[in-house]
Structure formats: C-alpha cells, structure tokens
C-alpha cells in the first residue's frame, strides 16, 4: 500500500508526459449535425482536449462519415440493435431509481421486438427499466429534432445505451455535458466505477427562473450530487450550482468557455446612425424586453442610433408590439432568425453590443462581438462579465444604467476606443486551449494523480 502511494507521488509531476488521461465524453448536440450553442462549445472543448488527452465521445446522433481531428465520436444512431443486445447481456440498470419523478410516457406499446421503454416499480416504489429494444434505438435514427418528441425517453435510453457501451471503452473518467447526459454519466459511473465530471453549460435556473423545479431540475441536481467534480462555465453559474442546487462548493471548478477565432471584417454602414445590437433567442432569459426599454431610454437622449434585435423566439410578436408602443418602431429593427453568415454581416456593421440577459451562464456572443472589436454593454448576471473586464456592466433590470452606458459609448469616442481596446485584451485569453488546460487540472484533481 505504501509502495503504491509512493509510486503515485513519484510520478506526480511526470503524469503529463508519462500517460495521457483517457476521457469518455458524453455529449448531446454536436456539429456538424446540430450547431446549437451547446454543440459548438462541446466541439471546441473536444478539439482542444484531444491535443492532451485520449478522447472518445458518445452522442445520440452523428454522421458516420465525418472525421474529427484527434478524437473518436460515436453516434447512437449508427448502432445496430444486435450490438446493443450483445453489450447488454447480464447488465442491470440501477441509477434511475434515484430520480423522483417519472416523466416518461407510461403507456408502453407493443411491437415485434417486445415492449420498449417499459418502466416498472419495485415494491419500495423504485423505478426499474427494461432492456433496450429496437424501437428505443429508433428514437435516435428518426429525423425528428433531438429535443422534440418524447425527450425524457430519449434521455433515458441514451443513458442505458451509454452505460453498456462504456463497458467496452478503456477510460479513466467520464465527462458529461448538461442535464441530457447527466443520467448517462451517473449510470456509466455506477457501471464502471470511474469518476464522473459534469459540465454545466446552462441550468434550468437560467432557462426557467429561480422557481424552476421538475424533472430537469431533479436530474441536474442528482447529476451534480453524484459527480466527483462540477465544471460550470463561469463563477456566476458556479454560484447557481451551489446556491440553487445545494452542491458542495468544494467540488465546483468554474472554467470559462473559449471562443473560436472568427473571420473578422468590417463593412460600411449604409445609414449614418450608430448601430446597437442584441443577438439571441427572444426568451425571457435573454432579457429582450429590457433591451427595448433601454432603446427607448437611449433614444430619448440621442437620435443618432438604431437598434437591431436579431433572433427569434416565443416573445417576438409581443416585442414587436411593445416596440411600437414605445414609439421606437422606426429605430428598432427586428430581423428574425439569421444564419451565421448574416450574423457576421451584422456584427461587421455593429457599433455597440448589448446583452441584458437575466441569467446568462456564459454568453459566448459577447466574446464573438469583441472579436469584431465591438464594445459591449452586458448584464452583471452573466458569466462573460467575469472575462470581459473592459465591458460596461449593469444589473439586467437597471435599464437606466444600461442606457447611460450606451449613450456614453456612442457619444464619447475616447471611451469607445478605450473599451474596444480593453475587450481586445480580454479575449486574448479566451480560447479553448486555456479552457482545456483548466479541465485537465480538474481531471487530475478527481483522479488524484
């Protein structure tokens, strides 16, 4: 025993060189199939990690013919039922029983392969899960969006399949991204005894507010409790994990996201006014109503400005009417959904970026704007505020302060230049390699190497 400990301590400083950590990563979205914010982040993390660890990734959906530099990626949608059947023999699923609610459709339907996704209760009221069936695999081969349909069942089947697959992988720890993969992470941990690291990109607290409870909240809480380390994307999100989920702060290790360098260009505006941009889904979390109020306040003080709200969401129509009500309809423009090319075109025209999010785990878009040399006015309730030291900040609800910042930026050239220069400094350290190094330190901590 003593000898073993000695060996570990002797090698402590050499582990980087001696042996690469083997990581099994569980993701949900992944480019090129899905290009949501989570997917982009997972891609950035994987690429950077793969330079320093042996990385294998499992996701629900992948294109079999796509090659990733430095790591392997398996999509459940490409598995054959027979493979799963073989893997599954002699395995008992157990971890799900700890999840309080059973949100899945409890009306199992019969098929040639038996009854898929069947859930039974033990005498103690615990949930038991049946084996994976052909119909379960088809959840991931269908053309349906990963988040639509019976999402709960997809999450559970993904977990089951990951657990049995993990037994064929050689790895040191499992790293799971957001709640959709947390159950899988816990199940893998229970099946293999390997430590679990969960990554918190966005929580139900950000999406649905402080009172959010329910199945997703339960899974997030359970996943973080079972994990050996939690990596939130910012200190701000770390306080959410500790404060709203009751997670022990000692195992929370915030790691800021990076930003992939983008092709930066500048275009000449076709109108004389300054352009202030809001970019994001039009949901309560992003604070689009506040942006409208800010715009109205700014326009009271200077006419030399136009506002653009790019993106779409359930609040779009209401916002259009509110804009009309505020009498800013000729200075406040809605673009609807824009593809990446159009977003970049817009950024190349933008003078000030505004992100008044009510709760923003990170806020990558502010970094992307900074790459375009655009000064940002951002809410204090965002992760990116920790990175962007030069950005002007205010509480999301403080529309007067936000408006003042914008007015200052569009009227004071000296200030504008200063803020733009500071943002350029701020983004220098915001890359995925830096983020990956920090994650590897967390791995070492968890493994005790």
């Amino acid at each position: 025993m003593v000898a073993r400990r000695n060996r570990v301590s002797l090698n402590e400083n050499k582990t980087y060189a001696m042996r690469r950590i083997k990581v099994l990563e569980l993701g949900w979205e992944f480019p090129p199939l899905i290009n949501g914010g989570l997917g982009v982040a997972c891609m950035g993390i994987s690429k950077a990690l793969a330079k320093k660890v042996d990385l294998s990734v499992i996701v629900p959906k992948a294109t079999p013919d796509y090659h990733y530099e430095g790591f392997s990626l398996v999509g459940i949608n490409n598995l054959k039922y027979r493979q799963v059947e073989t893997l599954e023999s002699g395995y008992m699923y157990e971890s799900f029983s700890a999840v309080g609610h059973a949100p899945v459709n409890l009306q199992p339907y019969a098929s040639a392969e038996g009854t898929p996704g069947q859930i039974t209760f033990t005498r103690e009221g615990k949930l038991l899960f049946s084996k994976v069936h052909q119909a379960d695999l088809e959840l991931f081969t269908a053309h349906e969006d990963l988040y639509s349909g019976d999402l709960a069942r997809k999450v559970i089947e993904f977990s089951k399949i990951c657990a049995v697959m993990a037994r064929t992988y050689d790895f040191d720890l499992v790293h799971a991204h957001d709640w959709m993969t947390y159950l899988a992470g816990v199940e893998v941990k229970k099946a293999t005894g390997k430590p679990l690291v969960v990554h918190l990109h966005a929580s139900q607290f950000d999406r649905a507010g402080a009172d959010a409870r329910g199945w997703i909240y339960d899974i997030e809480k359970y996943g973080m409790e079972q994990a050996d380390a939690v990596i939130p994307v910012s200190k701000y999100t770390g306080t959410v994990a500790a404060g709203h989920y009751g997670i022990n702060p000692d195992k929370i290790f915030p790691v800021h996201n990076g930003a992939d360098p983008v092709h930066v260009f500048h275009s000449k505006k076709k109108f004389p006014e300054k352009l202030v941009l809001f970019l994001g889904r039009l949901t309560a979390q992003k604070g689009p109503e506040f942006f409208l109020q800010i715009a109205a306040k700014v326009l009271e003080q200077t006419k030399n400005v136009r506002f653009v709200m790019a993106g779409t969401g359930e609040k779009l129509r209401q916002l259009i009417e509110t804009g009309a009500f505020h009498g800013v309809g000729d200075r406040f423009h809605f673009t609807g959904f824009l593809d990446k090319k159009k977003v970049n075109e817009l950024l190349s025209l933008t003078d000030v970026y505004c992100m008044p999010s009510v709760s923003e785990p990170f806020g990558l878009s502010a970094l992307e704007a900074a790459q375009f040399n655009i000064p940002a006015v951002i809410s204090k309730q965002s992760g990116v505020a920790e990175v962007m030291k030069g950005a002007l900040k205010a509480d999301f609800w403080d529309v007067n302060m936000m408006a003042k910042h914008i007015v200052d930026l569009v009227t004071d050239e000296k200030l504008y230049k200063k803020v733009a220069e500071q943002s350029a400094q701020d983004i220098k350290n915001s890359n995925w390699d830096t983020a990956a190094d920090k994650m590897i330190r967390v791995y070492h901590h968890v493994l005790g190497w």
Partner: protein
Amino acid sequence: MNISLTFHAHQPNRLIAYDFFKIGEHAFYEDDMLNAQVLSQVTERCYLPANRLMRQLIELSDGKFRFALALSGVILEQAMHHRPDLLLSFRELADTGCVEFLAMPYYASLASLYSPGEFAEQVQEHIDLIETLFGVRPTVLWNTGMLYSNAIAAQALDMGMEGIMADGNRQMMNNLHPNDLQCAPLIANTKTIVRNRHLSNDLANNRVDPSWTEYPLSPYTFADWITKQEGQVVNISMDYETLGERQPDSTGVFEFWRTLIPAILFGGNRFMTPGEIVREFHSTGTIDCPQPTSCSTFGTTSQWNANVMQQEALKKIYDLEEPVKASRDRNMIHVWRKLQSADHFHYMEKSNGFTPYPSPYDAYIYYMNALADLQVRVKQEADMIRAMESKNLA
C-alpha cells in the same frame, strides 16, 4: 325613382420583404412584379369585361344609363406602367360622356385624418390627373374608405367640392332618410351624398350568399326594390372589383348586371351621377358626424388605426411630412406619399386575412424598415441642402 351608381377601383402597392439589411441600400420598396401581376389578373377578370359591359349598356340605353367611377391615383399609375390598355378602356368610357369621375386622395391615404394640408394636396393631385387623363374635373369627393366627418366635409368645402360621399351607417344616420341629400353642420355648399348601405351590400355581398333569405336574387326583384324606394335619390356604390373578381364570372355577375340596368330603366327610374345630384337637389337636413366614419363593417377607422403597430406606423409616416416636403424632391415626396396608402396599415390589422404578407407583424416590420430607409434619405438630402447653402453664403 332616381338612382346613382358609383364604382370604386383601387389596387395597393404591396411592399417587398424589405428587411433591415436593405435600409440605406435601395429605395425600391414595392413588389413591382406582384403588383403588376395582380393588376393584370384583375384587369382581365374584372376591369376590362366590366368596362366593356358598362359601355354596351350606355350605348344600348342611348345614354340613359350613367354612372360614376372613383379611381385612385395609385391604380391609374399602376395601369400606366403595366396595363396601358386598361387606361384606354377607361378613356373610352369617359368619351361616352355618361361617366363621371370622382375626386379622391390620389394615394388612397388616410391624410384626411392626419394632415389636412396633405389631404388637400393629394386631392388636388388626383383632380389634375383625372383632368389630364379624361378631360374632366371632378366635383364630388370620394374619400378613402368613404371616410367622413364634419371636419372632412368642411375640408371638401374648402377644396371647392360640390359634394362628398359618405356611408350611411346607423349611428350617423339617426332618423334621417338614406336616400336624401344632407349637409354637415354649418356647411351649405358641399352636399353630403349618403350611400344606401343596405341596397349596396345586397349587390356587393348578399347576392352570392346562399344563406341570405333573398338568395338567389333576381335582377328584376332588385330593380323592383329600387323603383319602390322613397326620397330624392338612391345611392348605390361598391368596389368595382365586385364584378368578376370578388364575384367571379361563374356566379353570373356580368349577366346579372346586364339584365339589372335595363330592368331599372324599364321600371321608370332615372340614372344620375353624383355631380348631377348635387346640382339638382337641395339638402334636406343636417347630419352631425363629429367622429370619422367609414364604409367598413363597423363604420369606424379601426381597420387602419386600432392597434399599436398601425398607430406607430401612421405617426412616423406623418412625422416625415415636414422634412420630406422641405426637400422639394418630387420623387421623394412621391415615394413618401405612396407609403401613405391605407392598405399598408390595413395589412397590420390582426384580423385581416386579405394580405400578401405572412402576418400583420411582417407587414409592420417591412413597412417600418422601408420608412427608416426613407428617413435616412430625407436626412441625407437635408444635410446636402444645408451644406450647399452654407457654401453659397461663404
């Protein structure tokens, strides 16, 4: 009985999907292709066959059949660009001497509600256009959507109009007879011609409604109703598009009118145009109409200005009046005026299903973007003028 028949024709200038990225880039807001296409379609189905029929009826009746046309400046402009044959067809009607043309705000706008000065200018522009095209000067005003109020009647008087058309909705008419000429309070020289809403709707809507108790309506029955009317003159008016477009040829609409007009004449009735009416009859009473009324279902202006989007768009377009006019750029003023057409605001009405846009919100967004582009251009021009003036001073 005397009967006056007026048809109103107008086609909107629908806008393209004018998104944010176009602001400052190009000043072509209108969907020329779509507008030309719709005009052509309605010309083939409605205007040309209807004009042909009306001319035949005039000739067959030796000029006893007479009627009036209220053609917006916008549709005449569209016809000049895309269907000159339609203009020719209207001119042939004018040449019979049995068709009177009514004055309108050129752009079928709501200027009468938002800018009296602009309203007067648009009516003047329209009168000049009608005179150029058809050689006669209108003397009776047909405001957009038959918008009418005491104030609008007073404006018609200022413009020297002998008459103004109004829709006889119930609250306005009170106990007055719809077939008699009226006057607005303190306005003696411009008579108010009230549309017989009931009988007009029978022809424009009910005729093709199987649930109507009189369905199917025989032209002889309707002619009989006219004959039995009381009062000075029964005033029937509707959209010209009723003939062949709203009521397709297959509903027998042209046959109906071909029979109806001789049947009315046979009943001993006399066709008069609005101009003839106001010259021949005195007004019998005063109607007090402080709030604007229109010929819409509810008789109000709600289809154009009830929701916040409509109100914002209207406010911002009329806010531009002063700077646009200061530019003295005729082309820019024309573009600004075309954006005043009531259709733009009607497309922003939430319950309006008759729209080229995916939703009233899109209608609003495209409109406001186009308006923003115009604002940019107006400002550029103002800056240029100022720069030139200061140079001259130096």
